[in-house]
């Protein structure tokens, strides 16, 4: 089958690839581009491990066809740290033991980032709602919720 071109920015860098038509964004990111931060947990939309941010919105890369992302700005967890310094959310996840096996973590961080971008001072309820499409089998969720609230507080302190 003839390959089709796709072109988008990934964490600020231009990417252009030829892919098989109908390839999911998850497979394109992981297998073609080599960004393995989005994880394939279920490929059914139920676990959230593949979550990425497309044009500012949280999306499931396992159910998104890469061709529909032409021209889009895509953010993944691998693009968050700057010059080796972890993003406040990454720092908070580590400090709060919000990551154990780590499989859900990149998806959780994407969901949390969209929340904090839109709601810098979220309530606990806002956090629970924002993470409601993401499954974690290790932590019991509480440390993740606390990490997101901590990152929000440290963001607002830095801003003050």
């Amino acid at each position, binding site marked *: *089958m003839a390959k089709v071109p796709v072109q988008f920015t990934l964490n600020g860098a231009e990417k252009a690839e030829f*892919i*098989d*038509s*109908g*390839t*999911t964004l998850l497979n394109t990111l992981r297998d073609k581009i080599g960004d393995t931060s989005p994880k394939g947990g279920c*490929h*059914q*939309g139920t676990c*959230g491990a593949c*979550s990425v941010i497309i044009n500012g*919105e*949280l*999306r*499931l890369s*396992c*159910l*998104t*066809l890469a*061709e*529909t992302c032409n021209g889009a700005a895509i953010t993944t967890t691998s693009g968050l740290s700057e010059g080796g310094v972890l993003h406040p959310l990454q720092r908070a996840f580590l400090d709060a033991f919000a990551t154990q096996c780590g499989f859900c973590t990149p998806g959780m961080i994407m*969901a949390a980032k*969209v929340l904090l971008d839109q709601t810098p001072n979220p309530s606990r309820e806002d956090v*629970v*709602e*924002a993470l*409601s*499409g*993401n499954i974690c089998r290790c932590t019991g969720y509480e440390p993740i919720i606390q990490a997101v609230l901590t990152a929000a507080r440290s963001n607002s302190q830095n801003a003050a």
Partner: protein
Amino acid sequence: MALALQTFSTVKDANAALKAAGTRYLGGGTLVVRAANEGDVSVSGFVRSTEPSLSAITVSGGKVSIGASVTMAAIARHRDLAPLARAARAVGGPAIRNMATVGGNLFAPAPYGDFTVALLALDASVSTNGGDLPIETFLATRESHHAIITAVGFSLPLEGGFRFLKVSRVKPKGVSVLSIATVLEQAPDGTVSSARIALGCMADRPMRAKAAENALLGRKLTSDGIAPALAVASEGTSPVTDPIASAWYRNEVLPVHLGRLLLA
């Protein structure tokens, strides 16, 4: 195996491409890409249209038109569609709502289709390039429906006239045990003058509770007033049995939840 995607700028051209065997229209993909990922061999290719009208919401003179590609998230945040926000937010988690379209929801089998339950209560019309269909006719024949849905239309309900409830076991996001939408009008003395009640998960697709609708007419929304409607709420239902709930359970709890919604 990857399935080729064909993108067309017009609905007309996309409709023509959909005539090929094995092709499926791609909305947000939350059901159809999932099916492909699971190895559904009946899907051999995707077709979509990027015609701008598919993504438009228009509200004028109390009439609403929502393009088929509009997502649940877009409905939930639209100022003029506030009464429907609850129903749109009932669909999946945040990422699903950013992807799930109105058009796709119309085809979602139980236990999905929560937003379509709202559309059924609102007596929506379902539009294609070939014309409009009442939603009940569309739902009854949706398997044989191959033309692209372009939009849904309905009259905005009067203030407080529309109610929606989704019952799920996992909070805040879970698949429906059942969902209920009602559009009620009341006479000045408080008695119900018209009622439409739509149910989700009480059959393989959204259905109306016609016996309960009739039993509500002329009654007040009090425990005594709604009792006859609750007694017949399960008439005509054939709920799904799935890992969320059995058909028996769904029938048992329907009157309880309908009662809560009517008295809310």
